[in-house]
Structures are given as C-alpha cells and as structure tokens.
C-alpha cells in the first residue's frame, strides 16, 4: 500500500505504508504536526499515515517540504518514506565529470 503525493517544488513523496501499523513512533505525523501551516500527514484509524489536506492543496504548497517525515521515519520509524525531487542535468553532469577525470569527491 502506497501513499503518494506531489509537492510544490515539482517533486513527489511516496510512503510505503505496509509496515506503518506496526510502527510505534508514528514519527512522520509527529514531525509534520510541528510544521506550519499544520499537519499534512495524520494517522488514520488503520495506523497508517494519510493526507489531511487534499492532494491539490498539498501540491499548492501546504506541504512545506521540510523533509522531516523522510528523515524521522528513517531513524525512528520503518524507513518507508521516499522523496523524489527533480534536478535536471545533475546526473549527466556528474557522469561527464567522471568520464573526464573530474568526478565529485563523494564519488571516490
């Protein structure tokens, strides 16, 4: 089961909610509640996160893209949140740099 929504920057967030009912921390909703203008993720009766605003509202910027759900789920929850954000051209730039012997140091 997957919760997926798009955000203002053009990226998207997906949550594989299969394991969420067994998550004790519900870290995603906890960190989201601390963000203005209020929570995007809330916990439903089935123990899984769901969106409080509509998909359109989330895409319009209600989700502030704080990445709290991504990071807190990783260390306190089940590590099931994924964030996809476009950065057109960077992969090709890095690949070209590697081919020319000018790779970023993180590729060592």
């Amino acid at each position, binding site marked *: 089961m997957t919760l997926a929504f798009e*955000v*203002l*920057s*053009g*990226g998207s967030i997906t949550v594989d909610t299969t394991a969420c009912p067994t998550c004790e921390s519900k870290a995603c909703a906890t960190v989201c509640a601390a963000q203005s203008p209020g929570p995007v993720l809330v916990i439903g009766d089935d123990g899984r996160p769901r969106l409080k605003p509509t998909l359109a509202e989330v895409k319009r*910027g209600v989700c*502030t*893209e*704080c*990445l*709290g759900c*991504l*990071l807190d789920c*990783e*260390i306190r929850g089940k590590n099931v949140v994924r*964030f996809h*954000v*476009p*950065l*057109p*051209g*960077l992969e090709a*730039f*890095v690949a070209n*740099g590697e081919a020319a012997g*000018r*790779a*970023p*140091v*993180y*590729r*060592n």
Partner: protein
Amino acid sequence: MARLYEYQGKELLRRMGIPVPRGGLARNQIEAARIAEEMGFPVAVKAQVLTGGRGKAGGIRFAATTEQVRTATCALLGETIHGLPVEAVLVERRLTIQREAYLAVTADPSCRQPVVLLSLQGGVEIEATAAQDPAPTFQAAINILEGLPDHVARNIIRRTPRATSADIQSLTPVLCNLYRAYRRYDGKLVEINPLALTPEGPVAADARVDIDDDAIWRQPELGLRVTEETGRAPTPLEIIAGSIDQGDHRGTAHFIQLDPDGALTRGLGKIPIAFDCVGTGASLTAMDELVPLGYYPVNFADTSGNPSASKMYRITKVILSQPNIQGYLFLSCISSQQLDNTARGIVAALKELYPASRGKPNIPMLFTFRGAFDQEAIQVFHDHGLTESPWVKLLGRDVDERDAAWAFRDLHQRWCNATGGVPGDAGRTV
C-alpha cells in the same frame, strides 16, 4: 539578468519589425560557407560571445569569397574573446553604412521609468563619444502607462541634436518598435549599437538584449534558463542550479561558480573548498576570512529567505558536485529563517551522496548555525549520527566568521594529517 547572443537579439528585433541584416548562425566552416554563398558576398563573420568590445578584440571579420569565409570561421571558432570561448559565428551580409546611430531602451531606477537613449553620433565608440561630448546623446523618460506612440517618438528624435527631417522619418518606426520589444520581452536593456543608416534605410547592425531574470518564466519562447548574473555564459552546473528556484518561490538558492575549472585557485596556490552561506554579507565576510588562511571558495552560494528543506537538499547536491574540493563550509548569519529545515535539507543530501557511510563525508565539513532554531538544526545532525564523523564539525551562535574560518582550518589540517589531503573512499566510515 539573461543576456541574449547577438543572433538571438536580432531575431527578436526582426520579429518586432526592426530591419536586421540577412544572415544565419554557423557552428562550423561548412555551414558558414553555405550561408554566405546563399546570401552573396561580401559578408561579415561575427563571433557570438556574451561580451562587449568584440570588434576591437578581433571578433568580427569580413570576407569577399567562400575561402575567406572558411578561413575567418576557422580562426574565430575555438578562439576566446575576453575569456569566453567562441562556439558559433553569425554570418551576415555586409552593410553599406553611411552613418551610425545609437538607440537603446532601458530602465532608469532614479526616475522609475523606462528611458530611451538616442544618439545620431553613435556606433561602437559611443562611450568615448559620450564622454568627450555628451550633448549629442538625448535621453527621454517614457510614461509606461502611455507607452511610446508615434508622435512621442517623433518628438524625441526631433529634440536629438543633429537630427534631420529624414532621420525623424526613418527612425520613428525603429524607435517605436524597439520600445515595443523592450516591453514585450521584459527587457532590462534593448540596445542597437550601431544602428546602421544605409541607402536602404536604418538596419540594426548589432543587438544587445538583456531580459529581466524575474520575468524569464513569462518568455518561454526565448528558451532561456534562469541563471545568476555573472557577465559570462553560465556553466553547466549554474544552469542546473538555476532550475532550483523555478516553480518554488520559498527562499532562494543562488549559486555562482567563482572558479569553474580550478585554474584560478591553482594559480593562487590556494586550497579549493565548497561554500554556502545564509546571507550575502556573512558570505563575503567569511570569504574574506578564509582566503588569507589559504582557502579559496570555488563557488558563491546564498541560501536565504527561509528556503524549504527540499531546496537546501538540491543546492547542497549541486555545491558538492564540484570536482577537486577539499572541504565544505556552511555558515548562516544571525538568521530569522528556520534553520532546522535548512539542516534537514543538508543532512538528506549528505545521506544520499554518502550512502555507504550514512552521510559521513570524506572531506572536512564545517557547519555554523546561528539564528532561529539553531539548536534544533544542530540536533538534526546529532540525531542522524553525522557528528560521529571526525570530519564534521558544528558551531553555534557563539562564534563569528573569523572563528568559523579558523575552526575550518583546524579541521582541514587534521584531515590533511590523517589522509594526506586526499579524499578517501566515500564509503569508508572513518
């Protein structure tokens, strides 16, 4: 500011009804020869670079035969003019010029209006002419609500020194259309210099068009990409960074490469490092502290105005994709932006770039968080284990830019002593 190449600017002027010479863009000698033969001789072969003073630098050649076109094109392509490589030439029919004029529309911040600049003693030496004798240059502010109707344009030309009746007749449509181009394309400067006065009428012999950065999204047909104003063509990494602010108004991610190929840093004998700052004032202060210590920030970056964490994540990936860096310094001014979000973006980027070590880098990185939610920002680094890395150091609001620069120096020297100054296996947890 997005500056158009001459051939792009002329196409825009042509669309607005201003006569331009017949011509075409060529990226090799075969294309150049074909264009010249189709038009007929003589022709001008003009290097396409985003800099002024091109003619004096040898960037314009004239040719009367196909062989001369080939020779001129070969000579220009691969040349650098004022440090900018020539990657294309504009081949145009050579004009028979009787006189040269200068015509421009720009914005005057002092009167908060567009202004028209006109000189009938124009040409490539307009700056020198104006400096010696400013009288022939006429300037008129335009009421933006009224625009530039025909009768106003005529009056402007009439009041320009040395204008003849024929000038009023021939230049009026050019001036009106130039103003239309300025408004239609959100120009910051639309300039024809020189406007060649030929037996067939006025022709734009050159064109400089600068588009307002903030309006580029309204001009999709120009195919421009948002990049910072540098006075040179943007680097590939700057173009990538320029996409970050598009479509996301929350905060800014300014990024400029100060030494894209590392030549300057090597020449100065400095150590190249990556750099990001919240606030340009703090950025300049920090750079001033770093350079005497032997470090050279190979980029400028300003991530202020409370950017989203996702914006920080993206710009951090861009900054760290620069080759050969031996460290990274992030520093915020005493900022009102939510620094825990800033920290989340950086941490998310580090964890993605260094997956095997769960974000722990292989070069020294110093982060100085000062301002709103600075303690929470530092806590994010602790929570994700990044402070366990010997090459990550965090500072708070009790330090200034000098302290941060010296702390970075200490960290870098420890790293050099341990690694020999060579970034190790990024997957190794040190």
